[in-house]
Every structure is written in C-alpha cells, then in structure tokens.
C-alpha cells in the first residue's frame, strides 16, 4: 500500500474538528446549522485505543464517522484536520478515501441486524470488500480470505457458514461477521460505533474479548464509541468524555474513572448503575411478605403458532406479586420476559396456566369482562417514541385511559392530567404539546403518567429505561421508586440490564428460554447466585471498577 508512516507519528490525529449539519428541512436555503461536533481534538498513538463516551447527542458517533470521511456528500459541513495513519482524510480525493475506508481504517457498526446485505452470502460480502482493496486478488483467493477471517472471529465451520445469508446468523454471529469484514484487509485502525449495544450481555462480553484478542494479535488501533462506561472501562487505554460536541475530559481510563476531574464526568459516573451495589434503602419498607398476593401466576404458558412451527415463548412460569413490592425480571433476548409481562397485564391471553388478580382468575376472561380490571393493571413500554401517538398532544394521550374509564367529566379529566404531569416531574403547561417536542426521558415520564392515570395497583414496566442515557435512566428509576412509595404500587420491572434491575427490585426472577431458572430476594440472587446461568450473566456484566472482579 502507501509508504509506512513513521512510528513516531500518531495513528490518529484530529485537531479542531467541527461537524455541522443543516438544521430543519430547508437545509439548502442557507438555514441554520446544528453543530454536532465543535472544535474537537485528540490523538491515538500507533496501536493505541481510545474510548469516546458520552450521552446521546454528544457527537461521539459523528466524530467517529469523520475518521473515515463518512460525512462527505451528506451535506454536512466538516472543518478541521483529520489524519489517519498518515492520510489526510479531509484532503483525500474520492478514490483515495475509498482506499482508506476498509483498507487503512475499518468500521464496525452498532446494529448487526441491519448492517449486512440481507440478499448476499456473508462470505461473498467479505470477499467483495477484500477485492475492493486487493485488486489483484482472484475470486477464489478472496473467498478463502473471507473464510479465514470468519474462522478467526470464531464462526464455527467457517468455510461452510460463509455461504449463509445474514438472517441465518444470530445477532452475536452477525457482529462477529462484521468484525471479520473489518479484519479482511488488515487495517491499522478499527473504529467501532456502539458495537455491543444491540447484543445480550453474555454475547457482549464475548465480542469485547474478541476485540481485545485481535488487537493484541494484530497491533491495530481502536477507537471505541460507546454510551456504556462499563464497556469502555475494560476495552480501552484512554477515555475521551464528550458533551454537546466538545471534549469534557480526556485521560488514561483508570485515572479518569477513579479520579474524574470534571463535574460532568463525576455525574456521569455516579449515574451508572452498579451491579455490585445493594439497592439504597432496601428492606426499609419491609415489603409486605404477609400481605395477600396481588397477582398470582401459576404454570403460566404462552405458545405462538401451531403444529410443528409452534414456539413456546413462556413455559410453565409461576410468579407472585404482592402489593407495594417490585419484582425484577431479567433475561436475555428471547427469554420470554416481554411475553410474560404482557400476559401479567392481560394484553396477551395465556394459552395455559392460571392468572389470579386479587384471587379472581383473569387468565381466561374475555375482553369485555376484563374491562373492569384494565384500569388496575397498567404497562409502561420500552420505546417512548413509538408508544405515544405522534398526532395527539401528550395531555390527550394521558387522558385516554381516563376517558375510557368514563368516570370523570372533561374538566375533571384535564385537572387530573395536569396533576399527573406534575407528579412525574413535568410542567403541567405542556398538556397541549406533541411527543416530538420532548426528549426521550421526558417521553418516558409521559408514558408513566399515562400508566398512572387510571390509578392502577400494578404497573408492568417493560425495559422502561433501556433506550435512555444513564443520567436520564437514574432519574426515571428514582421517579418510579418515589411513585411506588407514595402510591403503594406494585411494580414488575422487566429489563436485560442486571445493574438497573438491582437498583429497583425487592425480588428477582431470572428467565431463560421461557422458564424461570432462579428466583429469590434480589440481594441474595445477586450475591449468592445458585444457578450456573445466573452466575454467567453476572460475570458478563461489564464493570467500572477494575478491582471488582466477578466472584
């Protein structure tokens, strides 16, 4: 390829980088610009690794994209200097930039589901990239190289699996395949944009291990973009904290995590849920163990499909929720936790087993008979964007369940909605605003207000904070705790993030393959897990503290 740059030169040198996107839809007419990255400078030494962390909107991905010149021809305005392995990215012509992309610096994207061409065999896709950069390579050689890198990233039977299409791979295998594509042309730098965010915690741990091994083996540099400080803590040497497009703080990862200099970094760290820390104030309330159960599921089962295509999503699950307590449900994707949650509030009918609410069997009730219970069993959904109707004002959305109940007149409904908005920490004046005007955290507060509206006894929260930044996450979790204390709500808290669940739960249920593998008081399960699966899950959680090794 091009001449080897001198080793004294840094692998990546970014100085005064600014990226601005045209604001609004009238972009061409010289409207305003939104500055996503503002005067950013950093370097990565040869073979070094840098983690760029920050909350959503901090500009961390935008900065990473600039390393490969990916903003070219997108209408974005890029200024400043970006040098990668001696190549001036800003000054390179289109052909030189194409040689850089994949050949010198390779990118691994967040979502392995959508980042591969669904129509082509995975091996062919890697071979295509290889031949872009090794023009003299034959088809056969490219295919052999694809099998070789797939084998390297741990795809079993790589030569045969190279002929599979992406939908035949699991999420973790797809991410491995993307990493294999990145490896194909032996780049000097790997840029990974949230490479494990879409993956389960055990798969995440495997991918992070793979990245570490590959770096040790090839000596390539790494720029890792992540919102998860735990992921960054174990994977990079240096950390760059970003906020509003600017660098807040930069330094060696241990120094920065142990003794953060800036308030923002300290706040960010404080908001990160720790899996090894007990729930503050746990046991104080003495969650009524002697109270009669509010909701009792016995042998609950849900099958989808029929005949030989049938899938049992939830299989013989028994669970009790008492008034005022929080039951945490954790599990990886496909464990059936969401299906269980939807059955508990009877948004979904069980195909087997019994579901009792205050002693009354509601498992087999028809929609009409259920109406009496609807107001007492509510649900908060994961995605605060798509679970609110974008064409209705948030006040109207919150009022819907009240109108459905039909007990209050219009004036009383509006008064109640304003009260609810205030209760979840929003200005009651936002009644007539629309969902797109709110941030993710605010939207989740609106979702909670809507669930609270009919004065429920039990709320099932399905991944309520997993789409939110850590600081927002902490606020929403705190709000749920307050509401529970003040209103005596019972909560079922479903999440894949073990640390978040620990922060809120009195009791914990661990699910796998539609069954409960372990159940008990939260602290007991976290501190003395009995089932091997629970132990594996806990060991896979990335930790901020270097000393806090898994048991």
């Amino acid at each position, binding site marked *: 390829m091009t001449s080897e740059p001198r080793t004294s030169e840094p692998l990546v040198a970014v100085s005064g980088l600014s990226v601005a996107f045209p604001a609004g839809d009238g972009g061409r007419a010289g409207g305003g610009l939104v500055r996503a990255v503002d005067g950013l400078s950093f370097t990565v030494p040869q073979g070094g690794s840098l983690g760029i962390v920050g909350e959503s909107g901090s500009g961390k991905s935008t900065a990473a994209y600039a390393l*490969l010149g990916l903003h070219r021809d997108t209408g974005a305005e890029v200024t400043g200097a970006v040098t990668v392995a001696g190549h001036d990215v800003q000054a390179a012509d289109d052909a030189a930039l194409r*040689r*850089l992309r994949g050949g010198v610096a390779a*990118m691994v994207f967040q979502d392995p589901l959508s*980042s*591969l061409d669904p129509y082509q065999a995975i091996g062919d896709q890697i071979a295509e990239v290889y031949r872009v*950069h090794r023009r003299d390579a034959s088809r056969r050689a490219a295919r052999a190289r694809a099998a070789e890198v797939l084998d390297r990233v741990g795809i079993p039977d790589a030569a045969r699996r190279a002929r599979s299409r992406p939908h035949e791979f699991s999420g973790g295998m797809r991410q491995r395949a993307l990493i294999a*594509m990145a490896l194909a042309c032996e780049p000097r730098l790997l840029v990974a944009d949230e490479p494990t965010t879409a993956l389960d915690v055990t798969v995440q741990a495997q991918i992070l291990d793979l990245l570490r091994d590959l770096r040790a083996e090839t000596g390539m540099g790494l720029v890792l973009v992540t919102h998860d400080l735990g992921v960054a803590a174990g994977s990079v040497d240096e950390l760059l904290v970003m906020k509003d497009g600017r660098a807040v703080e930069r330094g060696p990862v241990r120094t920065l995590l142990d003794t953060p200099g800036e308030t923002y970094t300290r706040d960010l760290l404080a908001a990160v849920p720790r899996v090894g820390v007990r729930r503050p104030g746990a046991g104080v309330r003495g969650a009524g163990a002697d109270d009669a159960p509010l909701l009792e599921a016995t042998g609950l089962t849900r099958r989808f499909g029929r005949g030989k295509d049938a899938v049992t999503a939830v299989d013989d699950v028994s669970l009790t929720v008492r008034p005022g307590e929080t039951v945490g449900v954790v599990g990886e994707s496909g464990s059936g936790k969401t299906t269980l949650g939807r059955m508990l509030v009877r948004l979904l009918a069980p195909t087997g087993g019994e579901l009792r609410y205050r002693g009354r069997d509601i498992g087999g009730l028809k929609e009409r008979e259920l109406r009496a219970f609807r107001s007492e069993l509510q649900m908060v959904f994961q995605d605060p964007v798509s679970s609110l109707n974008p064409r209705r004002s948030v006040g109207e959305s919150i009022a819907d369940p009240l109108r459905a109940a039909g007990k209050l007149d219009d004036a009383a409904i509006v008064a109640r909605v304003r009260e609810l908005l205030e209760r979840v920490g929003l200005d009651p004046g936002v009644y007539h605003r629309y969902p797109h005007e709110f941030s993710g955290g605010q939207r989740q507060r609106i979702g909670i207000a809507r669930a609270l509206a009919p004065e429920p006894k039990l709320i099932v929260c399905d991944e309520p904070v997993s789409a939110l930044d850590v600081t927002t996450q902490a606020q929403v979790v705190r709000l749920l705790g307050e509401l529970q204390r003040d209103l005596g709500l019972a909560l079922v808290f479903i999440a894949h993030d073990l640390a978040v669940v620990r922060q809120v739960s009195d009791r914990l249920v661990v699910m796998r393959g539609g069954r409960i593998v372990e159940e008990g008081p939260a602290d007991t399960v976290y501190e003395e897990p009995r089932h091997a699966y629970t132990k594996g899950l806990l060991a896979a959680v990335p930790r901020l503290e270097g000393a806090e090794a898994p048991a």
Partner: protein
Amino acid sequence: MTGYLLRRAAGALGVLLVLSVVVYATFYIAPGDPARLACGPRCNPEQIAQVRDQLSLGDPVYLQFWHFLQGIVAGHDYSTGTAVLHCDAPCFGLSYQNNQQVTDMLIERLPATASLAVGAMAVSLLLGTATGLLSALRRGGATERVLTWLTLAGTATPVFISGLGLLMLFCAYLAWLPFPSYVPLTEDPEQWAWNMLLPWVALGLLESAKYARLTRSSLLETLAEDHIRTFRAYGVAERKLVTHHALRGAVGPVIALSAADFGSMFGGAILTEMMFGLPGIGALLVHATTTLDLPVVVAVVMVTGTAVVIANIVADVLYAAADRRVALR
C-alpha cells in the same frame, strides 16, 4: 414448493369461483329479459324462446349457474331444436349475436392481446427500471430532474395522444414503418414484430413512467439502509452500491406491480388496441358491452381474472427467488 403451488392454485380457484358468481349475478339477474338481451335486437320470438331454453332460464338461478360452471369445466351440449351443438370444455356459452361460440371468439382474439401485453410489458420494464436506475444514480443532478420531468409527462400523456404522435411521426411523416395492421406471429414473425412495434412502444412508454418512479423511489429507500452504509464505509464505489447491493432490494415492489399490470393487460389494453386496430380482447369487450352481448362480457371478465390471479402467483414465486428470506409455505 409444490405444496405451496398447490395451495395457491386452490386459493386461486376460490377467487375465480367468487368472481364468476359476481359477474354471473350482475349480468343474468339484471332487470330485463336475459334471453332477449342475449339474443340481440333482431331476434324473433321463436329465436328468443330457443335462447331461453338453451340458457335453461326456466330453471332456478342456482341451477343456471351450475350449468354455466359445468360448461367451463366439462363442456356443454346445446339443443338447436333439430340438432345438438357441442361446445368444448372451457365453454363460456354461445354468442347469439355473432352466431359463434364465445370460447372460439376468445381464442381468435387472444394472440393479438397477448402479443401486445408481452411486448409492452418488456418495453415498460426495461425502459422504466433503466430510467429509475439512472435517476437514482444521478440523484441531485440535472439528469435526475430531466428524467423526473419526463416520467411525469409520460404518466400524464394518454395513450391516444402518444400513440397518435408516434403514428404520425413514424408512419406518415418519416414513413419508416407501415401503418400497423396485425399479422399473426405464426404467419410471419418479422412482419408481426414490425407491425407490433408502435403499439408496444406507445403502451410501454405510458406504463414505463410508473416503473421509473417506483424503481427510483424504492432504490433511494434501499440506499438509505444501514447495510449500504456498511459497504460505503468499506470503500465500495457508489455505482456498485446501487447495482450490486441496492437494486436487489428494490426489485420487490417492481415485481409486485408488474404482475398486477401484466394480468390486467390480458383484459385488453382497450385504447391501444382500438388506436392501432388490433383485433384483441379489449376491442372485443368494448363491442360486446355496447351490444349487450352478455356471454362475451362474462367470458372476458373471467379470462382477465384468471390472468391476474396467475400473474400474482408468478410474482410471489419471483419475489421469493429475489429475496431468500421469504419462505414459501
């Protein structure tokens, strides 16, 4: 795959059965004397009586319909009073006004319509997808704006304007082509092609505008997907991104639309057939409708329906071939 096709065929038969009930009901239970209508205006009372007898109009409606279905599946014998007239298996009855079996009339007309449909479809698909592809490749440029304008104009120009323009230009003014007169393919393939050229182009142009717009929009949609970004980030050239990665994802909607279009073309592209004097099914349908030749109208509707249903099955199979994730079951 075989199981899938069998299931689809069964479904198709169901659809056609419903269709036959609806058209049969509309035309035979309509007010007025069906026998008089079917026989035509110049019939004397004896002839009408014979028609009534042949259509078994004395029987209850469900029996009449049963005879109609029986005729399609197994053929039918009509008594002419002195002799028995046999009508072979797909028998759609008799056109009294033309003194002909309806099936024979259809068979006579089908080649012209099929020629037009196949050729026009080829022209519109080639031209449409190529135009769409080009405007997606040159997005944002002058080429794209010109092409967008042209396709818009194409959609907005009725075939009797564009067809007339083509006729005047190539046949009258330049005299490069003869004024089209249909020559069957089996008679003289070369003359067939030369004479069909203008109808193909006229109908194909009109239809191609739709495909150009569809190809362009679904290509742009695919180009915004994450996997395209992946290959862009690995140095794959823009042109190859379109032809090698985006195109395949974009053909789905084109296949679906073209199947429906192709099927309905078998009902006759009426304006084009009339304009170029093609003895096709469309022209037959127009004539049958104006003279209230009910058996012919029913038969044309059934043929069109069958073509649409078959085309859709073919489209679904092609769709699955283009996208391996689609499992046919």
